[in-house]
């Protein structure tokens, strides 16, 4: 069943909609942040709902690392058809998840000017992760960057910095500040 394609098309259409909403057109910076928050917020609710249902019959997770492994394997592969390629941690609550061929970015070309647009594609997936973590009892801040691997055949890389912090965090939605593209020597 090709419903993953349906999701990708829907996601792109949602992105176009969110960014051309008339009420936000006055200030381009406001538009971008609000659009991102909306996308992230949608991702959050979807991530929560998905994880609630998915883990209904699961035994409880042993610890934080167990949860992160679930996200990297089961969760990620059921949404993006592949597992996270690399997981790193500082063992103090920060995890970096790396996906070398992120499904939602394969549509945009690898030119530098398009990297500016990449954070918009990451807002929803960041929300998905934050929602999943929330459903499993962890509050977090999720941010993402897109990095181009410097080589003759650029591969879209994507890192999500997931900071899991169990002290209470403010309840308002997380605003993702998109980072600019990394500077690469050509």
């Amino acid at each position, binding site marked *: 069943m090709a*419903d993953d394609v349906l999701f990708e098309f829907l996601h792109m259409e949602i992105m176009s909609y969110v960014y051309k909403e008339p009420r936000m057109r006055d200030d381009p910076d406001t538009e971008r942040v609000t659009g991102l928050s909306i996308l992230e917020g949608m991702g959050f*609710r979807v991530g929560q709902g998905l994880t609630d249902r*998915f883990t209904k019959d699961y*035994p409880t997770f042993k610890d934080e690392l167990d949860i992160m492994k679930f996200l990297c394997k089961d969760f990620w592969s059921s949404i993006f058809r592949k597992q996270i390629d690399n997981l790193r941690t500082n063992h103090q609550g920060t995890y970096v998840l790396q996906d070398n061929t992120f499904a939602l970015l394969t549509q945009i070309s690898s030119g530098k000017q398009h990297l500016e647009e990449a954070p918009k594609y990451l807002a929803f997936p960041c929300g998905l992760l934050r929602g999943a973590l929330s459903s499993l009892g962890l509050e977090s801040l999720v941010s993402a960057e897109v990095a181009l691997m410097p080589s003759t055949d650029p591969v879209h890389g994507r890192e999500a910095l997931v900071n899991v912090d169990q002290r209470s965090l403010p309840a308002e939605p997380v605003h993702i500040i998109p980072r600019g593209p990394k500077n690469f020597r050509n």
Partner: protein
Amino acid sequence: MSRQSNRSTDSKKMNSELFTLTYGALVTQLCKDYENDEEVNKQLDKMGYNIGVRLIEDFLARSSVGRCHDFRETADVIAKVAFKMYLGITPSVTNWSPAGDEFSLILESNPLVDFVELPDNHSTLIYSNLLCGVLRGALEMVQMAVDVRFAQDTLRGDNVTEIRMKFIKRIEENLPAGDE
């Protein structure tokens, strides 16, 4: 470990739930942005159209169905191939008009509405209206102008969901104008 069992079925389930839940989040957002249901319905139709004009290419690439010779064949392909491929259901094709230019797709179950209830103040919302736009946009790309609308909707109390499709006319093939 019980967690390992049925992982592939779980993955598939979660994947289709991803679409369903995302669609729900979209409709919720649209209801916030627009004051009345009619506007939301229009927006859903428009977004569906934008998806449909692109989805048709994906469909043709995956399914390798040839050109349909008539509207009946089109109906069968939509119900048995397209719906099955993208939504995992096979609606039945019924209620043909005498002229053969109009038919109904009957969906016993509609995956889009799996976790959905319409609140009282949204009684005129056509929740799944995206589907109408998708069908209209997709068919336009294969030179068919059609009118698509919901005749029955389980969310609004009907027993089944019924999509009525009417053939308007064949669109003459234009040279690509490069519009977007």
